[in-house]
């Protein structure tokens, strides 16, 4: 007995939801970044799972996309964390509740 595609997708969904929870509920900017990274990783899991369960392709598209996505996530994390530091220097806080200059 082996796990089906559905099982992987549900794990990925759960990971995504946990990431969403972190992004929505924590008031620290770093948590939001962590949440976003988790959501991205969940998407990567989906790509890999679909690649594995889908018809055989050469070159392996799912793997390729996952690779690029990881690279982009790294870039995003770097810039995001730099922004957290910049914001902290400027406002002396990383609490997103207080960062509401875009308030309408």
């Amino acid at each position: 007995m082996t796990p089906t595609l559905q099982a992987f997708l549900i794990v990925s969904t759960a990971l995504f939801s946990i990431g969403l929870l972190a992004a929505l509920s924590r008031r620290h900017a770093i948590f939001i970044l962590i949440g976003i990274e988790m959501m991205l990783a969940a998407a990567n899991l989906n790509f890999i799972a679909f690649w594995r369960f889908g018809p055989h392709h050469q070159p392996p598209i799912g793997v390729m996309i996952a690779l690029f996505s990881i690279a982009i996530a790294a870039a995003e994390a770097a810039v995001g964390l730099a922004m957290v530091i910049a914001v902290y220097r400027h406002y002396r806080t990383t609490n997103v509740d207080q960062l509401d200059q875009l308030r309408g």
Partner: protein
Amino acid sequence: MNSWIVTYLWFVPAAPFVASLIILTLSNARRRSAAALAIAGQIAALAMSILAFGQTLQTPGFRVVQNFTWFTFGEQALRLGFVFDPLGAAMLLMVALAGLCIFVFSVGYMAEDKNFTRFFAYLSFFSGAMLGLVIANSLLLLFIFWELVGLASYLLIGFWIERPRAAEAAKKAFITTRIGDMGFFLGILWLYGRSGTLLFYDRGNGCLESAGLAMLGASATFIALLIFCGAVGKSGQFPLHVWLPDAMEGPTPVSALIHAATMVAAGVFLVARVYPLFSLGPINGVTPSLTVVVWIGVTTALMAALIAIAQADIKRVLAYSTVSQLGLMMVSLGVGGVAAGIMHLLAHGFFKALLFLGAGSVIHGCHGEQDIRKMGGLRRLMPVTFFTYAVGMMALSGVPFFFSGGWTKEEILHATASWAPSHAPYYLILAGVVLTALYMTRQVIYVFFGNPRATAEHAHESPRAMTMPLIVLALCAIFFSVVLTPAWPWLHGYLTGEPVHFEIARLIQPMLFVSLVLVGGGVAAGIWIYRKAGAPERDRPAEIDPLEYAQPALFRFLANGMWIDELYDRTVIAFSWASARLSDWMDRYFWDGLVRGFGAIAQLFGIFTTSVGERGINAGVDETTVGTRGLGRLISAAHSGQIQTYLGAVAIGMLALLLLYAWLA
């Protein structure tokens, strides 16, 4: 061969229109040129009318039609046209002639007014529209002119614009007639839809010709009744008569021209013009639409005559009298006496114009006083006015033989007596005859007999410009009777297209004696009641009417127009105003509230995510207000500026899309 004038009939209304346009461009100071232009335009119209009228005498049943295409929409042509037949020709002549008299009279009457030029511009405009109305060969063209005379009436009633009452009366006139006009408009639409044309006569395809009528079927009754709505509004028939007495706020020549002689008669003319529609599909010899016309007419005639008895304003007496006479004409049309009704219309045009101008002369002589109880004894101070007024009064009362009104009323009585369904209208009209004689006698006694009271002591005869038209109109009222006598019913024959013969024996008829007795009775009663009207009598003060003294409650009821205005104020007008306020309120609060409700839903999660957090843990000290501040600004609150709120919105939106997709799949 037809002469050029029949082909270019539109010259007749065009002349006053052109005059009006030129006058409008003149400055206020050029009074003489304005009056000259207006009168010249009117003379031109009259001359052309006479010329054209001459053409119609040649053949019985004369009818010339000139149709043209107004515009083409899609592939359809909308055609209008002018028709020239005895009915139109007679109306044309009356309108042009009475108009000319009134124009001349106005030169004297309005001499002091600072807006003299504008007055003549409006008058000419009215005259043009009215002349156009009577020769229109299309219900649409008729409606166009109908609205234009309404506009002229509105402008002229409110001519003394600085008087709030005049403005109020103008508004009332415009709106009340427009209520009727909306029915008329629907009638036009219906007729257009059924018959495919609005031309009256179009070589057998017009809506009044057999082919067109055949297409109408059962809807003819409704169409006729809707068109009649317009006539009810314009001709001051019950229940839309309320504007006409108020319209007396306008200058007196306006009352004479528009609200006595011509425009208010347009309703009667309209019914006569589309008579084939009314007489389509009779049941037991009578069509339902004509029955309605009869009963509306009877109600109006009698009611207005009753109210006229209790009026103190010289013009309001005449106004109610006009309403009553128009009711009479409607009855005549309703019972089948089309020619009789039109003859009465023409005769009424002359003598009612005469009476109004006489009243104008009296008012002018008494320095603007309009209350008949404050006049008296004017027959010595204003002899010309008195004699001409007396002619008008006798014509209106229906004194036979020498006065036009007598003969036409005879005809109407004849027609009504032979109406099959009921004799009630006949008897009610007889009562109306008595009342007419009574209120006219009352008015003449108050104004011209007895001793001068109050302002009347310094009265003076009016200038020549005003008395000449009076004399001309008085002569018309007398000589017009020549063509109306039963002995030689020329006009009757002219209108119906039947040949007539002179036969002296028809002059004496039983009906004549009946009406002689009734008119005599009315006059006698009036003289007896009002013999000492202006003077104190027993314990009655001079300013109180003898009838008021005898029946104060009833008199007050009549003097206030049977409280109909007040009834409308409290019902129709109050209801409309309330619905206007309601609409406004709904808009401001209900619909807008709904929209804000949607906005509130959109922001709900914004408040939700923050405020749930507050209550759930309540650890925050400095961030307690952040979430709730959004409540104050409803729509913008969704933009909390917080990244997490936006993210939550994205998540909810994604969910919504998912559900939508699931629902669709």
